[in-house]
């Protein structure tokens, strides 16, 4: 039995005669029992007719009184359909069946078929086939629906129609309590889709979203009057709406058409640390004048195997800092994180992650793990406060080891660094104080030594060594009173910021 009350009868009558489908009638009657929507619509339609037909017995007086008003107000075309139903039980079976069949095949003026054929088992099969075709791995899914905008206009028109027609009867028809088309659609489809998927839970919140979109080109013009309106909210005054749009909405010949099913898995986040042992590897693909300069990049070497394992559609890579193309990254490795967009696979155990880690070549990746939520601490450029480097230094004048030992005694040397010329084209010109906390030297030969540095983050080491046209002061050339140049640079990453 449908959970309808006597007071719903005139509403049901009005809606059916306006060309509403059975489920839309339930919606307007604010029926929130999901099972009522799940039963076949033909069934519901029959029950609705029975329901309004019953009035002749129980609420005869009231119902007759109501019907007196109707001839004048009802659209003439709908009239013949409504008439027989009023006599209810006395109707001969043949003509009722015919009428029902006629109403069934009619496209609902409000939902344009969404709650009719477009939410049946066939539709569920179509959705499931699309999902399976994309070969996603998932435990649950959430169904999302996108409806043509004109459904709002039609819904409002129908609501106004019922409201104005039944005003005198003090029928309270709160628009907020009306069940949304989307809601009803999901109630029906969720269980159908779950069944077709063999028991996967279709829930209200899941990382895996399956989107169904409907369009209805025939009535796209329904909304046009809204664009020419100066009124800020066209739904409130009613009069404006009534003068621009028919109430109830006009019958259509076609129903909505379903667009391609869109599947989307929320991002998965992967993090780890990397060491770079090569002096000819840029961080990102290096393209100058549309031409590729280096074969690969840190980003690509790490991302390619991970993206393919997670079967992701794309990725965003970030690392805590970066090194120049010719700088090696040693020590515990530089932390990085990756957002994998629309991953088709998102479950890996520890062994699988380890195997994936080993698939990354040229770059050494360690501590690889993944997470369903964004790692908030991972921000581009987030770095340790102190950084350690080793540089191979060339001196123009020959040196002996005694010439450089004084450098080991220098503590907390403050530099005035102008933005290096090599990055000045894209950075603000400024003079920044930077501290070199300590340095160590290791003599190699009369023109070479290794210089270890512990510096404040943001110190430009190359410029400290060669001086950058005297724009970093003091610089190593000044300290050693000879031209110096940097031949190799390694950054040593400490343990601290494991994200």
């Amino acid at each position, binding site marked *: 039995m449908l959970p309808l009350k006597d007071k719903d009868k005139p509403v049901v009558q009005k809606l059916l005669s306006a060309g509403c489908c059975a489920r839309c009638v339930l919606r307007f009657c604010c029926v929130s029992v999901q099972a009522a929507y799940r039963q076949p619509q033909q069934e519901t339609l029959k029950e609705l007719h029975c329901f309004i037909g019953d009035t002749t017995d129980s609420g005869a007086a009231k119902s007759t009184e109501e019907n007196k008003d109707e001839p004048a107000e009802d659209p003439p075309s709908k009239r013949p359909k409504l008439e027989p139903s009023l006599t209810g039980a006395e109707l001969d079976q043949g003509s009722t069946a015919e009428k029902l069949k006629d109403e069934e095949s009619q496209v609902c003026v409000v939902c344009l078929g969404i709650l009719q054929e477009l939410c049946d088992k066939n539709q569920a099969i179509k959705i499931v086939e699309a999902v399976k075709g994309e070969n996603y791995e998932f435990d649950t899914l959430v169904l999302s629906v996108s409806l043509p905008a004109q459904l709002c206009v039609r819904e409002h028109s129908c609501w106004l129609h019922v409201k104005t027609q039944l005003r005198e009867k003090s029928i309270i028809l709160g628009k907020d309590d009306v069940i949304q088309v989307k809601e009803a659609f999901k109630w029906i489809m969720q269980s159908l889709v779950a069944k077709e998927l063999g028991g996967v839970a279709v829930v209200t919140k899941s990382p895996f979203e399956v989107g169904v979109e409907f369009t209805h080109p025939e009535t796209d013009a329904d909304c046009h009057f809204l664009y020419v309106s100066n009124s800020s909210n066209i739904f409130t005054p009613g009069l404006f709406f009534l003068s621009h749009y028919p109430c109830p909405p006009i019958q259509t010949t076609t129903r909505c058409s379903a667009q391609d099913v869109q599947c989307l898995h929320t991002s998965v986040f992967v993090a780890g640390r990397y060491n770079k042992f090569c002096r000819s590897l840029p961080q990102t693909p290096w393209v100058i004048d549309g031409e590729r300069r280096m074969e690969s990049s840190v980003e690509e070497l790490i991302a390619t195997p991970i993206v393919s394992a997670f079967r992701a559609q794309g990725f965003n890579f970030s690392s805590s800092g970066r090194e120049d193309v010719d700088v090696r990254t040693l020590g515990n490795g530089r932390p990085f994180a990756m957002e994998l967009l629309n991953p088709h696979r998102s479950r890996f155990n520890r062994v699988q992650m380890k195997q994936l880690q080993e698939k990354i070549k040229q770059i050494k990746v360690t501590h690889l793990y993944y997470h369903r939520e964004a790692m908030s601490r991972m921000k581009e450029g987030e770095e340790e406060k102190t950084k350690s480097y080793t540089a191979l230094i060339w001196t123009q004048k020959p040196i002996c080891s005694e010439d450089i030992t004084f450098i080991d005694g220098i503590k907390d040397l403050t530099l005035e660094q102008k933005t290096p010329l090599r990055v000045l084209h894209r950075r603000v010109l400024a003079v920044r104080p930077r501290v070199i906390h300590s340095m160590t030297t290791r003599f190699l030969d009369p023109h070479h030594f290794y210089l270890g540095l512990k510096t404040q983050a943001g110190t430009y080491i190359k410029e400290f060594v060669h001086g950058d*046209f*005297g724009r970093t002061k003091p610089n190593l050339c000044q300290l050693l009173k000879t031209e110096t140049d940097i031949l190799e640079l390694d950054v040593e990453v400490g343990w601290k910021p494991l994200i």
Partner: protein
Amino acid sequence: MDSVEERDTEIKAPSVIDRYYTRWYRADMKGKPCEDHCILQHSNRICVVTLAETHPILQDGRTIKSINYQISNGCSRLKNKVFGKSKRGGQFLTDFAPLCRITCTDESEYTIYSCIRGRLLEVNENILERPALLLEKPSTEGYIAVILPKFEESKSITENLLSREEFERVVSKRSVAVQSQP
């Protein structure tokens, strides 16, 4: 100094300028003999204006008396300031825009020019304090100014300049001319 070893390391490690900059030259600036300028263009298009090694200031043991970035009553290159990543507010220079005037102790005076179109980013204030830098390290710490060409002009601005080979040819012809003089 061990010259053999030095040559070895130079082969192994070209200087910072060799690695990242292209040298361009303007010979006999404004028709004045030997007033050669050298423009170092970084691969990121930034240009550093310097004196070429052949410039008269660097010859005959001259010393510098003064360097003046005030190029007219109304315009001082020292007042140049740029803001933001886009370097708003920098003075815009054309090929023949003067950057500074240098007076030597022998009272000879020379004007140094931009040589390229672009926005002035900075001038070298270090040489005001230590003019000797200009003589000791004309192509590094003794630079004159830094200019940022427009992105779309970063290739075309050097079209009127000489490459290093072309400049060396010009210079060698000069020395021939000097030698052939009676």
